[in-house]
């Protein structure tokens, strides 16, 4: 029984990590470019941020539920969970990317343009390096939140450490609940610490 629990723990932890990793990769892949894109386009900024804000206000269990009947991205299982986790992670990533890019000193940007940098050079050599620590802070917030929210994904059959938690809740078994909650909390702490360390490497220039 003991070894069985340990084996399950390892499998569910891996599954949980996988859910978080996939969701975070997709959210970063969408959120960072979108944040850069809206930084210099004031008219669309409100719409994009508004959408991300609205998504963020939907309770997570409800969002998972809403997605189930939607074809292609919905249904029971991992796809639905990943879609929901991506939607949640999007706002902090988007917002911090935007704040990071907008936070670049206008005099620095003006100098870069006046020195004959192309838009691309301005982005890669000036804006992104200077925004890096703020963008990473957004990734950190998103990662910690995603690890927590991913436990709820078990409710729609996506697996992960939430399986223990829901099973423990159903059978009023504290050990099972803790077997899910403690590793999830440790994972969140590790992500926070690790990304925090990387962020510091890019520290305020």
């Amino acid at each position: 029984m003991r070894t069985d629990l340990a084996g399950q723990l390892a499998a569910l932890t891996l599954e949980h990590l996988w859910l978080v990793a996939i969701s975070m990769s997709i959210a970063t892949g969408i959120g960072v470019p979108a944040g850069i894109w809206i930084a210099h386009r004031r008219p669309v900024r409100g719409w994009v941020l508004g959408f991300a804000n609205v998504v963020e206000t939907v309770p997570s269990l409800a969002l998972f539920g809403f997605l189930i009947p939607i074809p292609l991205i919905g249904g029971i299982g991992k796809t639905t969970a990943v879609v929901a986790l991506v939607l949640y992670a999007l706002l902090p990533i988007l917002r911090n990317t935007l704040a990071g890019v907008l936070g670049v000193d206008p005099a620095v940007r003006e100098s870069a343009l006046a020195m004959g940098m192309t838009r691309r050079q301005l982005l890669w050599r000036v804006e992104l390096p200077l925004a890096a620590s703020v963008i990473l802070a957004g990734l950190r917030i998103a990662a910690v939140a995603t690890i927590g929210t991913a436990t709820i994904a078990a409710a729609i059959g996506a697996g992960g450490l939430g399986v223990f938690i829901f099973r423990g809740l159903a059978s009023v078994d504290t050990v099972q609940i803790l077997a899910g909650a403690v590793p999830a909390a440790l994972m969140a702490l590790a992500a926070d610490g690790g990304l925090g360390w990387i962020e510091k490497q890019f520290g305020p220039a």
Partner: protein
Amino acid sequence: MPMSAIVAFRDVSYTIGGKQVLRNLNFEVQAGETLVLLGRSGSGKTTTLKMVNGLVRPTSGEVEVEGKPTGAWDPIRLRRGIGYVIQEVGLFPHFTVAGNVGLVPKLEGWSRAAIDKRVHELLEQVGLSPQDFAARRPRDLSGGERQRVGVARALAADPPLLLFDEPFGALDPVTRLELQRQFLRLRRSFSKTSIFVTHDVREALLIGTRIGLLEGGCLRLSATPSEFVEADLPEAKAFLACLDWKAEESS
């Protein structure tokens, strides 16, 4: 001699948000000149300057650089050939001093060795010891040192034309005078054409070979410093009064 005009403004006007910032500007800057654009805040001098390197485009009329309208230039080529120094300096905080000064040469694809040599030479010219300063970050410099780096950066690729937007405005008076003197020394050793924006009439008289007086977006006067001090225009007199208000007070 219109052929030697490096910069020419032809009926340039600029309107933004229903407000006319510049009205029918017409002037030329000849090779080797230092034209100082003098005016109060909001007189349009910074906008005028930014039209030369295409950071701002005229609403009507044309700005020509080396005989070609700025709109016909590739903006990147245009800007690489024009040094730009602003009051806020705008050094790249994530680059060292050497990285800042060597940026345009690097963008232009110079070799590592050529860049190093150039950076070394420029830091010396602006009065900063390369050994002490090359590896430092902008945040570790004083205001005066930062602006020296800003000037060195603008000179890096040896552009024939330099634009200065109140470069010494934020410095203490002692440092400002040092940098103004440095500017005059540099001008003697390189034959550059400069346009220099300021609201300080003392600076205008010290640095300019010609002074253009802007008032409400119009060029009121274009005169040599010695003509300027004799000018009869009310706005010129208002600026000249800044020089000797103390004398007036006691008389």
